[in-house]
């Protein structure tokens, strides 16, 4: 496995001439844009890591006249706050990325679905959006963006739940197929991309795929904005090249007493100290939407797991059995084991249950509850029991 070490970069927040990049993009054919993004190896920055170029290619191939580009700004994964920072500092690049995506897929209309928790950003975002609309008009391109707000529901970060929410329904994930690229928001072909993905796409158009592939590894191209919190002397936003080990990360950001790092938020994986050096942060190792949470030895991993399970129990949409009931069982289960009301072997049953949730849940939420559960229970079993 490739190991690049920890390299700080500054691309996402770098100031660019938006008009120039957009003009360049609009002169390209949609195939050229898609090829560039495919060549860059860019994978979705929300966490799931689907190749962005493929997503655009599929949506572009749809015959429908009406298509949408949706920016997923429902950043709700515990420990992630990079999209807020990006929207706060370089919203114009988000809008620009949407316009480029729109050009690539043949869409004239974009939605930004912003989580309700970030409503305070709205006034400044509207100012930025006005500027963007003017710029687009000057360039002579037809593309407009509308904001839609969330109202406190983590699950709306799941793409089809997000569409349901935009359409005015409960944010319940849909059955797939059909996938968004054929049947997305308002049942039209839709490319839905994370905030950071769109900014990165714009950067790739600016700098070229050839430049971009110089960063990162074979499986995880480029750099990524990390949201770093927990037991660290330097919490905050850092842009790093992909391909470092957790060990290198901890050496930079740890407080000298790090016992575990939760990579990818509540739905991600817990990496214990003994596995720091062998674990690469990226799609070849532990993938992340950017959330990196450090725990030092003063923390109870039972409390961490309990907090996560409490989160999922509340934030599951509740429609499918494995997730709705499974979350409750995992939560109640560890409580009873902790209190001694259930034997410690019951944890084995719960691990099996987590496996079922992983394969049988309707959407990514239920499917990923088992990540944190299993990695914490397997690595910190004694902390859960005693």
């Amino acid at each position, binding site marked *: 496995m490739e190991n690049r070490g920890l390299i700080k970069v500054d691309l996402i927040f770098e100031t660019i001439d938006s008009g120039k990049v957009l003009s360049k993009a609009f002169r390209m054919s949609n195939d050229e844009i898609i090829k560039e993004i495919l060549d860059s190896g860019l994978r979705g920055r929300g966490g799931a890591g689907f190749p962005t170029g493929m997503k655009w290619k599929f949506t572009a191939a749809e015959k429908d006249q009406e298509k949408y580009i949706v920016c997923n700004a429902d950043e709700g994964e*515990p420990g992630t706050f990079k999209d807020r920072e990006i929207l706060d500092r370089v919203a114009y690049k988000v809008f620009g990325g949407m316009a480029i995506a729109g050009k690539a897929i043949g869409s004239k209309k974009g939605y930004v679905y912003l989580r309700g*928790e970030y409503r305070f950003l709205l006034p400044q975002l509207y100012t930025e959006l006005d500027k963007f609309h003017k710029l687009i008009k000057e360039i002579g391109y037809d593309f407009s963006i509308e904001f839609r707000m969330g*109202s406190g529901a983590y699950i709306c970060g799941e793409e089809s739940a997000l569409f349901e*929410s935009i359409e005015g329904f*409960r944010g319940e994930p849909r059955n797939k197929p059909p996938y968004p690229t054929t049947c997305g928001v308002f049942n039209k072909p839709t490319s839905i991309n994370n905030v950071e993905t769109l900014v990165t796409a714009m950067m790739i158009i600016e700098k070229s795929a050839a430049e971009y592939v110089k960063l990162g590894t074979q499986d995880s191209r480029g750099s990524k904005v990390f*949201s770093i919190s927990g037991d660290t002397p330097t919490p905050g936003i850092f842009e790093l090249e992909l391909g470092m080990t957790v060990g290198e990360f901890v050496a930079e950001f740890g407080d000298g007493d790090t016992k575990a790092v939760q990579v990818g938020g509540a739905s991600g994986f817990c990496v214990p100290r003994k596995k720091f050096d062998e674990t690469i942060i990226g799609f070849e190792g532990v993938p992340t939407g950017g959330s990196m949470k450090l725990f030092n030895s003063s923390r109870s991993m039972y409390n961490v797991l309990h907090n996560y399970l409490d989160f999922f129990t509340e934030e599951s*949409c509740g429609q499918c059995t494995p997730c709705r009931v499974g979350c409750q069982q995992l939560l109640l289960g560890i409580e009873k084991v902790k209190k001694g009301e259930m034997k410690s072997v019951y944890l084995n049953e719960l691990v099996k249950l987590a496996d079922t949730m992983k394969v049988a849940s309707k959407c990514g939420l239920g499917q990923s509850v088992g990540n944190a559960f299993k990695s914490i229970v397997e690595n910190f079993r004694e902390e859960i029991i005693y």
Partner: protein
Amino acid sequence: MYNTGNLVKEMVERHGRNRDSLMPILQDIVGRHNYLTDEAMVEVAKELDISAAEVYGTASFYSFLDTEPRGRYVIRVCKTITCSMKGKNDILGAIEDLLKIKLGETTLDNQFSLLETNCIGWCHKAPAILINDMPYTELTPEKVLDVIKGYMNK
């Protein structure tokens, strides 16, 4: 309880009568009054020609679209992991002591409601709270009291 009056009509004028107008309408009502009364939900249902149970079902899915009476300022204390680790309970306790209400309650003068919420995206500046839409971060029990006192004097 607030009077619905022309509120729903006004919102419908602004956002339309389609199903996808529902969220913006409910959000704007909450933006003004912090919660949805039964009367307001029934009226929205009529305007949009959907059932009141569906309006309630949709609203109750979203934790910010409260259907129980709330005060003028809704304090939401983040309870997710980092805020929890960094002293959320102390913040909560300080607010409870100041406002003389418990979690989930509203002050008698209907000024403040105290709730918990899941991750609000300020983990690097934990602990954090929202008061209506505004985030307050890197709080200490002393600091949060100052913030709330500021609202008391508004």
